[in-house]
């Protein structure tokens, strides 16, 4: 399993165990498979995604990424894990505005010492970014920026790809095109995809689907 989540709980200051944002969530995700996490606003979807990405710490339970238990890791080791094995795609794209598209795409892979120019070339070509490499993010449309974010995430050849409403800022047509492309490339890269979405249509495109309600899977 690339991702194992066992009985994880998480609460924010002021919350009681009964009102915790996550209450005993468990799931498994194998290499090359994809999982859509749906749920209402405030159900804890993004929190679970952040925990799965070693971005935040949980109160109890355990999360394993590619066999590494997160509860035992210190801040520096969690950062190293993210650098090496985990990629993220966000709704807001979160590109680095001061870097050109070429640099944005390669940044994560180079930080993790996993940059493969040939694979990068394939991604750029498939994502239709060839003529945009010397531009800055602010010079691109929303759809183009999201394709850059996907390219950056996949350039690492991560074991686990996390995506939080990756097409939430795009219109329906662009959204569908971007999702098709992302799923295709995820399959080619062999990564496991864990995706948070509100959209039933997008959730239906993935292998598995899990619904989160009041901090618990249903």
């Amino acid at each position, binding site marked *: 399993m690339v991702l194992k989540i066992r009985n994880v709980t998480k609460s924010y200051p002021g919350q009681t165990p009964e009102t915790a944002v996550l209450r005993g969530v468990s799931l498994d995700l194998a290499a090359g498979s994809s999982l859509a996490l749906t749920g209402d606003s405030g159900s804890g979807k993004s929190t679970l995604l952040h925990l799965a*990405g070693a971005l935040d710490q949980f109160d109890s339970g355990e999360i394993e990424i590619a066999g590494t238990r997160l509860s035992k890791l210190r801040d*520096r080791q969690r950062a190293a894990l993210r*650098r*090496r094995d985990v990629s993220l795609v966000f709704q807001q794209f979160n590109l680095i505005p001061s870097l050109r598209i070429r640099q944005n795409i390669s940044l994560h892979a180079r930080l993790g010492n996993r940059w493969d120019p040939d694979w990068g070339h394939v991604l750029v070509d498939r994502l239709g970014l060839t003529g945009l490499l010397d531009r800055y993010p602010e010079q691109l449309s929303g759809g183009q920026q999201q394709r850059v974010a996907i390219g950056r995430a996949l350039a690492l050849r991560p074991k686990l790809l996390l995506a939080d409403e990756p097409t939430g800022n795009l219109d329906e047509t662009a959204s569908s095109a971007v999702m098709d492309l992302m799923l295709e490339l995820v399959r080619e890269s062999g990564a496991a995809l864990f995706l948070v979405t509100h959209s039933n249509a997008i959730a239906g495109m993935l292998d598995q689907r899990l619904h989160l309600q009041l901090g618990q899977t249903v």
Partner: protein
Amino acid sequence: MIRSALSAILSHWRRHPLQLATLMAGLALATGLWSAVQAINGEARASYARAAEQLGTTAADRLAPEGGTITLQQYASLRRSGWQLTPVLEGTVRFKRQSFDIMGIDLLSHPLVPALAEAAEQDSVPALDALLPPGRFFAHPETARMLAAAQSEHPITETDRLPPGVLIADISLASRLLRQPDSLSYLLILPDQVSGLTPLQHLAPGLIRIPARSAAADTARLTDSFHLNLTAFGLLSFAVGLFIVQGTISLSLEQRRGMIRTLRGLGVPMRVLVVLLAAELAVVALISGTAGLAGGYLVAAALLPDVQATLAGLYGAAVDGSLGLRLEWVLSGLAMACSGTFLAGAQALYDLWRMPLLAAPAPQARGQQAIRSHKAAACAGALCILAGIAIIALFQGLLAGFVFLSGLMLGAALVLPLLIATGLRIGARLSTRPFTEWLWADTRAQLPGMSLALMALLLALATNIGVGTMVSSFRLTFIGWLDQRLAAEVYVTAVSDQQGTRLTQWLEDQGITVLPIRRSEIRYKGAPLRVYGVADDETYRLNWPLLEALPGVWDRVAAGEALLVNEQFARRHDLSPGLSLALAPDWELTIAGIYSDYGNPNGQVITSLAALLDREPDIPNRQFGLRLPAEDVPEIVSSIREVFEIPRENIVDQAGIKARSLSIFDRTFTITSALNLLTLGVAGFAMLTSLLTLWSQRLPQLAPVWAMGLSRRQLAGAEILRSLLLAAFTAVLALPLGLVLAWALLAVINVEAFGWKLPMHLFPGDWLRLILLALLAAAVAAALPARRLSRLDPAELLKVFANER
């Protein structure tokens, strides 16, 4: 509506208290340093005006000789022709090695008489007592105390209606003490004159009429350059402080764009919003301005003693010791705070005014927009520099010098962001590692938010380098000059002329070369001029610090046909070797050379002792320089004291004088060093406030990199590294700017302000120290944001991705 809108606008500060504190601190600092300088200047100018008024020189015109002095015969002749004139004889008298300025007046006709009579009455002394032997002095209580310690022959009447530092006496006593029985310095033209008199220019064509106001403003005029220097420093500090204010106001308005858009959408007119924001700024300006004034008052009070020492040392101008609280100072300080605030906020308010109702709250200019704004600023900067160069090429004088410096400094500050951005771009190109590539690019992205603080740092560093180089060059030159000028091993002052004669004889019997130091004081074009007579001795030929000279200069001086003039006198009157100078109508000599004479506010000339004694045989013969082997100094000093009972303080060895001179020199520049450090402190604070106010904008840029696997500690380290990088770039660019500033101070400003030009020396060690200090300030400024980042809750970074910010 207005109350609700105001409440919404002000709610911003509840969420950003640090920003408010930064704004107020920046404004208080800017106002404080400016007000401190103004308080010092105001106090000094008030002192000059008070002194002039107390000496009775504000009400009457003066009749002064072009050169030399006025004879009693000339005075009597003018009086006989019906003019109501009163004579004045000025000079310097010494009692026990202590010098006092003396003003001899006619105690029956001078405008000061009523005040002196009142003082005498309070002292229970008959009004005419001062006219009778041995003669009485009138002096400010402070001066009277010093005089009483130095002499007891003449009684003293204290009166605080006289300025400190000057003795008033009847003209007969003054002429006796100055040994000028037939000389008058100038004549005051009394206000009530009968009509139909022959014009003075016909009766006395050799005398110049100097209007009352200009005569009274002598000291003020002499010290104008010093006060202008201080004002320039104050203005620089004010400008550096305003950089903080501008940055903070812009940020606060930018962060409120969303709120303002909402308020407009809810029906509040833009005009009302702008007025409310302006009112908010005015209140902040008044509160901060008041705090700044309080701080400025304390700084001024702390610096005033050093300013007094400087003014006394450089110009012989006395300034009262206490600092008054003047209404005009308070009002002008508050006006500066308000106008500075609106100047700093004008652009941001204007942008807000022009913001379309549906415009999205845009972040600060970055990317292409930032590059465009850098280029526009650089063009404006280049124009400023060119304008400054054009001014200095076309015009001369202190004001032109300051305009050149202002253009240069402002221009360099405006060009700075483009230069740094270019440097960062080159750095990014050269980097091969992803982390450094990101660091360079991210530093460039942060530049728009940091550029004002960096401009402030550039100005502060350049000023420190420039002024530091000027002061150190001056010090080095001064030490060299002291070595040349103070060639004699020992300086002795006899208690009387008779003792002086005996001492000379005794010393010559011991085989010691004695160099008499004898001088007379005349006036040249209304200003005092000291005429020294020197013996023809190898000491002068070998050591005297000549800047320019004709061939055979010392032979000509020794022959009594030529003289030497000091640099400031030569510059003031545009004199050069080969021209002639009339010290009196019948005494004209060729200028054979010009010598440096640092620290002396007055004109000075040197001629042959024999020639001087021919004209003025009675001038005192009490001071001597002695040439002897250094190892014999202690023995000779003790022998002189034993044989002649000369007080210890009347015998000073060369090292003692040098030490004293250097100590005066160092004290003179204490205020400069203090203002330098304060300006650098303000610039460091500007960096800190910029980093803190940018803090909230940094997270969206840092969170993605953190998510990609850089730890918070690494990011915190990057923050410090970024701050160091920017400070280092700025420091490297500040160095050439500082050197140009030093050149301008040495070659233009100093010549105009003090009358001497100094060679420029370079002090790489000082620059290195200063650059390290700037880097330390940058690291300290970044330490707080970096610490916050290293301890930041990941949930705060996650908000960036959750779009909750």
